[in-house]
């Protein structure tokens, strides 16, 4: 089936999210849609999937106009979508999830579970998905859940499959497996629209690449185009993908964690007997697949949760029982992994967010009264220094793009003397241009003699910044390695030290 979008435009009030987009998906093609966050990729896909109505333009299937009022119409027309956040019922089995919404019945209105299970097995073997019908979805690893989503779409006879940032939640190994599956789908004539901002993946799998910037198609490229070329098209200017950094000059041990264990409210050991040191003037990266205890480890360092056993030492003093305020005042800077959740107040202005954890300092308040002129002056200079793109220094954070929101958080944390900087996923959901800038500032902070701890699930980021890499798996630090290590090797460590290999 040939899918065409002609002149698709979507406006929200005066804001044009998609501006006259033309896109053609040939049968059996893997078409990559590349663009920064907020470039309009999701809006386009939501129109294609019947979730949004185009302001202008239309969708054509094999030359015939198609008008999708709801996802049901899109599914009917043979379009399937795997969302970034899975739409599965965790307490149902794989087969039940797949048959959901299109249940086959036996006599007396009983569900035909056997037919559903057979269908799962059949599709799974045809497309080499390795999915069994029986297990509950909640018991499956994320990578398998994603394959259940793909299977669900295939069960609906999808001819065009939209994959929205599918690799964001996967280990490097799982990503490789997904690419194999994409190839086998392609062999059988299914077209794939692959949405991503990871250049490496685009080059590895794409047949054609369409780049979107600020709601417009800025060009198409063959997969042979270099990463630098693709990045430049995405951002609109030349981008340095590699951070210039001198070799680290590690100093004294600043932060030391000794045999720390965190047991959460459900009794699960989320951080398991972890020990490491962070040294002045050095970047220690904690690599690992999401959900292997990094979040809790960092929250423990910040005093947001207390270690169940073990010690956290800052310059030799135990800070295990510090609350966040004391941790901050002791000289720890913190860029949280989920900035919208923990990093800023969306309804507050840029100027207010820039002092969110600094307002008590005599510079910004005296005797409980805010010094608004100083807060405004600070905002003007930080906006300038960090190139924060905002309409005014008092605009709300909600009105900024993800990259600029992150720059506000980074600017705030780097605007006071630090002993330790903890940055968790510092560039998640941040455009390529801002990534470059944020990485540069983190390395500058290192060279100033701060002990830097980076937590990242992106290997590219880990390799770009790290002087040492600690790999976390299942709550433990399984190894501390040098950044000279091969990608494959670290991928194995992230997946549990070769257990799955």
């Amino acid at each position, binding site marked *: 089936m040939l899918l065409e979008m002609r002149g698709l435009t979507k406006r*929200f*009030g*005066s*804001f044009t999210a998609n501006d006259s987009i033309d896109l053609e998906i040939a049968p059996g093609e893997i078409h990559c849609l590349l663009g920064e966050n907020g470039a309009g990729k999701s809006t386009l896909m939501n129109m294609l999937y019947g979730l949004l109505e185009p302001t202008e333009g239309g969708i054509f299937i094999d030359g015939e106009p198609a008008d999708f009022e709801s996802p049901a119409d899109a599914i009917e027309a043979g379009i399937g979508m795997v969302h970034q956040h899975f739409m599965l019922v965790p307490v149902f089995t794989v087969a039940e999830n797949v048959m959901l919404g299109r249940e086959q019945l036996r006599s007396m209105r009983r569900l035909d579970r056997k037919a559903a299970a057979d269908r799962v097995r059949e599709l799974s073997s045809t497309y080499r998905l390795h999915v069994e019908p029986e297990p509950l979805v909640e018991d499956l690893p994320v990578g398998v859940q994603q394959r259940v989503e793909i299977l669900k779409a295939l069960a609906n006879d999808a001819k065009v499959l939209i994959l929205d940032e599918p690799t964001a939640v996967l280990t490097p190994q799982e990503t490789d497996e997904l690419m194999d599956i994409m190839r086998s789908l392609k062999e059988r004539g299914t077209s794939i629209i692959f949405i991503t901002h990871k250049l490496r993946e685009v080059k590895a799998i794409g047949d054609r690449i369409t780049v979107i910037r*600020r709601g417009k198609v*800025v*060009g*198409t*490229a*063959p997969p042979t*185009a270099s990463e630098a*070329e693709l990045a*430049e*098209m995405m951002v*609109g200017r030349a981008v340095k993908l590699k951070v210039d950094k001198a070799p680290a000059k590690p100093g004294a041990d600043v932060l030391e964690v000794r045999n720390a264990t965190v047991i959460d409210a459900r009794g699960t050991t989320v951080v398991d007997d972890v020990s490491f040191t962070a040294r002045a003037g050095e970047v220690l990266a904690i690599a690992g697949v999401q959900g292997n205890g990094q979040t809790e480890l960092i929250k423990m360092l*910040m005093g*947001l949760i207390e270690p169940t056993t073990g010690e956290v030492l800052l310059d030799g003093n135990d800070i295990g029982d510090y*609350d*966040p*305020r*004391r*941790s*901050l*005042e002791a000289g720890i800077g*913190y860029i*949280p992994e989920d900035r919208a*959740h*923990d*990093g*800023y*107040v*969306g*309804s*507050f202005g840029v100027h*207010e967010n820039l002092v*969110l*954890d600094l*307002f*008590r300092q005599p510079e910004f*308040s005296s005797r*409980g*009264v*805010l010094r*608004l002129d100083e807060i405004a002056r600070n905002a003007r200079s930080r*906006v*300038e220094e960090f*190139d*924060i*793109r*905002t*309409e*005014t*220094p*008092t605009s709300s954070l909600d009105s900024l793009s993800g990259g600029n929101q992150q720059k506000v958080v980074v600017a705030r944390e780097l605007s006071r003397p630090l002993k330790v900087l903890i940055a968790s996923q510092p560039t998640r959901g941040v455009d390529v241009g801002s990534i470059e800038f944020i990485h540069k500032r983190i390395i500058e902070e290192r060279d100033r003699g701060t002990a830097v701890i980076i937590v990242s699930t992106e290997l590219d980021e880990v390799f770009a910044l790290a002087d040492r890499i600690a790999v976390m798996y299942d709550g433990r630090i399984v190894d501390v390695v040098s950044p000279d290590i091969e990608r494959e090797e670290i991928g194995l460590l992230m997946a549990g030290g070769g257990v799955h290999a």
Partner: protein
Amino acid sequence: MPEVQQVEPPEGKEATLRTQPKWMDWLPTVRMTLLSILVALVFGAILIAISDDRVVGAASFGDAITGLGQAVGGSYWAMLTGAVGGWDAIADTLVKAAPLICAGLGVTLAFRAGLFNIGGQGQLVLGAIFAGYVGFAMDLPPGIHLVVAVIAAGIGGALWGAIPGLLKAKTGAHEVITTIMLNYVAASLLLYLLSNVNAFQREGQLNPRSHPVDTTATFPTIFSVHTGVLAAMVLTAVVWWVLERTTLGFEMKAAGANPDAARTAGMNVQRLYVYAMTLAGLLAGLAAAMTVLGQRLSLTTSVAGSLGFDAITVALLGRATPLGTLLAGLLFGALDAGGVQMQAGEGTPIQLTEVIKALIVLFVAAPAVVRSMLHFKARRDHGETTMAAKGWGG
């Protein structure tokens, strides 16, 4: 370089310097509020019309139209003169508005800290008990007596506000539930005191009613307005100052808008909940002082009326801002004062004012209704502020 390349002007630098006055942001909100009031008055007019003999009993269509004009025009004119027609009317409006503003500020303050304070009523009742007791049972020199009674009212309200604050901070109990329950406790406590405790009972009364407060403990009157009214205006400015200019206000707003970010930034969110509820109770207690020491001058079981609940709607209408609360309180005070005149002069039932009040709040809470009635285009990106009841989220 593959195919297309387009050059775009660099954005940002220049835009950074442009400033826009902040009040401009409020224009859509103000417009929507005024339209809501207008639409509510139109609905009120329909109610007046269908309950008036001059309209429904009219002999001809022409008579019905004339009757409609007379009935609606007469009623609303009476309401207007009752609210602002002359100094006495304005004074009446102000006296009725003062406790609404004050208790509304309490709801506003708590709301900004992320707390849905339904307990204004209970806090008012406690404030009234404390103010009344000091007013009639203690013997103090003029001036000092009033100050002590007002402080007592504030303490009573603050105590009743602090309880749900502490419960939330220590146990996570939701303030909506605890404040509602404490409203019942407060009402029952007042009834108990008035009917069973000698110190509160007035002899020879069938209805539960306390002794009158001593004249030394009442608000002095200037130009037929008691001085508590002035206090409501001052308190509006104080609450604004606390919210916009102090670190405490900064922390409370941060905790209200994003408690996780506030915690991460080193704020003690739990403690802020207690502070916010205590201050909210304090304001409700001061509202009770205005009522007991300025208007009613003795305690009855209905001394607080439905002030605590009206305060919620006032805060809602005022978009949880101090100035908005002041204006909304004045509007509701005017409706109350005008309603009396309307009933007396035109025979239009005073309940109509309650209907109008409720409709205003309904339309403000659901701006889409007004928009569709008046065929506005929906504006998603820079629209008016809607007060979502985020109380359940906390």
